[in-house]
């Protein structure tokens, strides 16, 4: 099987088929909620970090008993629903954090209702002040100790160094995949890229590296995508689902870039690891990376990244989107709207979606109109 096919299969499954293989070796799988949790610590413990996703959810009925459809985001509701239905029973533990109100509460409800064999909450600061970095270091120390106790292992500086090496290689290779989209005719579609990113958070990093190396070889001589009308950047989407990418590309757009959570932000910045100070260097790197709106007053740097991306990826149009009830991305949209003239590419009006997209026809209509506008 080609590396691309393997990656796409891994990315589509939840759990990915890699989990079964992993568990048969007797190793543990620890779920985590957000990319601000250093997966290197989990890797270094010998467990497979598995980013929980909503993929596979067909509704949120069970989760809606505890979380409100009036104001709670459908993405964590979908994840919680899967957990309530036993779809995450393969996890040997779960790590949550304060990424946003919805995710935080969904994690707390998961623990309260399901009593997983292991759970841990990491408080991640929202600023980069030294005192906040120091606090984050204390939190990572607690996480490390907690994992060591549960898994009966020692997480050494060396095991962390190795984990960082593997994960940084993941990031570098994913960035190389991303850079393919600078070409006039990228060898992959944006949908495929997104599915590869989903795979990257659910399979062992060594295997991911092997597959990404193979993929980059496979696509070297590809003719690439030719039948597209507009190069599109997606801004603001949080989910792992591929509805948006698929619809854009069915309408002859090509998604070349994003600033999304299950997207470029996941791999954009390598970790600057100091083996003499492993946890402080992890803490600093994670807080310093290209930010999510959960980090305070960092809109300016996200805006800068978008402006650069417009130039680097020759973006024809930007689709602004967000999950319904996401205040963090929602208010980012306000600032984007105010700076739209300086962006360098036309921006759509905000496309507000629920995670389990029953309203594909609405999405289709909006995107079709936007792409037509771009062509005019």
């Amino acid at each position, binding site marked *: 099987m080609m590396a691309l096919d393997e990656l796409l299969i891994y990315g589509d499954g939840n759990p990915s088929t890699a989990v079964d293989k992993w568990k048969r070796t007797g190793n543990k799988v620890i779920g985590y909620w957000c990319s601000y949790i250093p997966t290197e610590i989990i890797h270094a413990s010998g467990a497979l970090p598995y980013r929980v996703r909503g993929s596979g959810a067909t509704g949120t009925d069970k989760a809606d008993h505890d*979380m409100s459809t009036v104001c709670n985001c459908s993405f964590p509701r979908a994840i919680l629903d899967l957990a309530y239905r036993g779809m995450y029973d393969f996890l040997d533990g779960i790590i949550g954090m304060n990424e946003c*109100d919805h995710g935080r509460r969904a994690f*707390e409800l998961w623990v309260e209702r399901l009593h997983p064999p292991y759970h841990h909450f990491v408080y991640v600061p*929202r600023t980069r002040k030294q005192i906040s970095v120091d606090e984050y270091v204390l939190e990572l120390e607690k996480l490390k100790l907690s994992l060591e106790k549960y898994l009966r292992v020692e997480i050494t500086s060396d095991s962390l160094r190795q984990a960082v090496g593997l994960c940084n290689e993941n990031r570098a290779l994913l960035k190389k995949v991303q850079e393919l989209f600078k070409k006039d005719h990228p060898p992959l579609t944006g949908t495929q890229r997104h599915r590869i990113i989903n795979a990257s958070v659910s399979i062992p990093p060594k295997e991911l590296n092997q597959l990404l190396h193979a993929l980059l070889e496979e696509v070297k001589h590809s003719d690439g995508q030719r039948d597209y009308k507009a190069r599109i950047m997606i801004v603001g989407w949080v989910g792992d689902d591929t509805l948006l990418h698929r619809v854009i590309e069915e309408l002859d757009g090509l998604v070349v870039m994003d600033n999304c959570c299950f997207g470029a932000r996941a791999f954009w910045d390598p970790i600057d690891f100091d083996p003499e100070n492993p946890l402080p260097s992890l803490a600093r790197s994670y807080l310093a990376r290209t930010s999510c709106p959960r980090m305070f007053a960092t809109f300016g740097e996200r805006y800068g990244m978008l402006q650069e991306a417009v130039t680097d990826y020759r973006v024809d149009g930007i689709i602004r989107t967000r999950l319904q009830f996401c205040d963090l991305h*929602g208010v980012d949209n306000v600032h984007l709207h105010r700076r739209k003239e300086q962006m360098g590419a036309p921006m759509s009006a*905000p496309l507000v979606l629920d995670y389990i997209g029953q309203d594909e026809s609405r999405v289709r209509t909006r995107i079709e109109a936007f792409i037509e506008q771009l062509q005019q």
Partner: protein
Amino acid sequence: MNNFSSKRRAASRKRTTMSNNRKYQFKTFDFSKPVDTCVDLIDMLDKTVGATLKQLPESVGWIFDPVLQAIDELLAVKENPDKVVYRHFTYAPEMVYAMDCISFVPEGLTFMMPTEYLCALVDESRGMDTPEHFCGYFGGVLSPVLAGRMPKPKAILHCNQPCDNSVAWGTVLAESFPDVEMFILDNPYGDDEEAVRFIAGQLREGFKYLERMTGKRLDLDRFREVMSNSAKAYRLLYEINEYKKAIPCPIPTSAILRSTSAAFYALTGTERLLSWLEKHLADAKQRYAEGRGGLREEKMRVVWLLLPVFDPLLFDWMEETFGAIAVSTLSAQPFYQPPDIDYSKASFEELLRCLALRNNNHAMGRQGRGHMSTFVNDMVKWCREFKADAAIFSGHWQCQANWASAQITREKLMEELGIPMLIMAIDQLDPRVVSAEAMVSRLEPFLQMVAEKKEI
């Protein structure tokens, strides 16, 4: 058919309901008239809300003094632009008072302004792509802040509690005042000693920041005085709350909860607040001694989570129709336990620790930033202590963290105290989302059920 059941049915039929008695005329709003959103909001508040409250007779007017005090502080903002410090509503005001600066809370304006203005400003912010689920407290001032129609601060004290809306609001302030460095308090998740140390360390930096931004030096004696006043204020509120546990609840009206909310969000550390609390306490003591409650006979006791702000007549309706007295609400509860120290001699570090505890235990901040058990346990505690017959979770529909705690809270209340909790969605500020009449349609059957259970 037994007599007991038919007595209850008869009582239920006699009770005034909206369907058969239009005695209650809730506040009416006219959203058809255009509103000048560029009006000076502080002046407008003074001339509308302030003027109305000042006309009330002293026997009733004293209840609203915290609101008048807040308006006076807003007027001081205009007169002393060099002292203005923007402050998030869950960032303890004591820090600003200690620096002899003037605290300005833009979102506090939405709490007080006439509803038609608030709605017009919310609509204006929606025209800037603000999501409809962005909290109205911030959404109501987003457009004037971004458009430069608010006073420019010397400094900005911000924090991330209680919720994502606060984080998002921080970006608005950063975009609106790019040349004013912001100080952000990273509120912790926990409440242990480490969390207190983390906050205290940041507050130490916060004072240095304020000194740098305002050009003033912190006067330790002034800090002592402010924290002493703050401690007194909390102790008075605790004492008042002890009386409120009595049956009937010795408060003049449930509307006093709103004044208490305003007081403890904005005015702790001031002497004027102490005067008001002493009056509140004296009133409670007298009512208690006389065995009386408010205006109407108390037949049941209710704890509200978040009060609808736009129409205090809802309380009148509840009291009149069911004898249901709202004895407590989240924002009128004290959570900060002032340390028992000699504030007149306290060291800077001791005072920082007090201020850290104060910040960590700010109403709503405390429940929003941490684990849901804080919210759940607080609700159970209030209902137990105040001998509530029922709880009402009138969830502000933009209050996401609390909404995700509501169901568990309902279960715990039934499990531990055997009392029901009504969960209903409202917009605390905007009656266009859920009007008072619409709330009544949810409250009525619920309170009727509680009344029948109590055999009222």
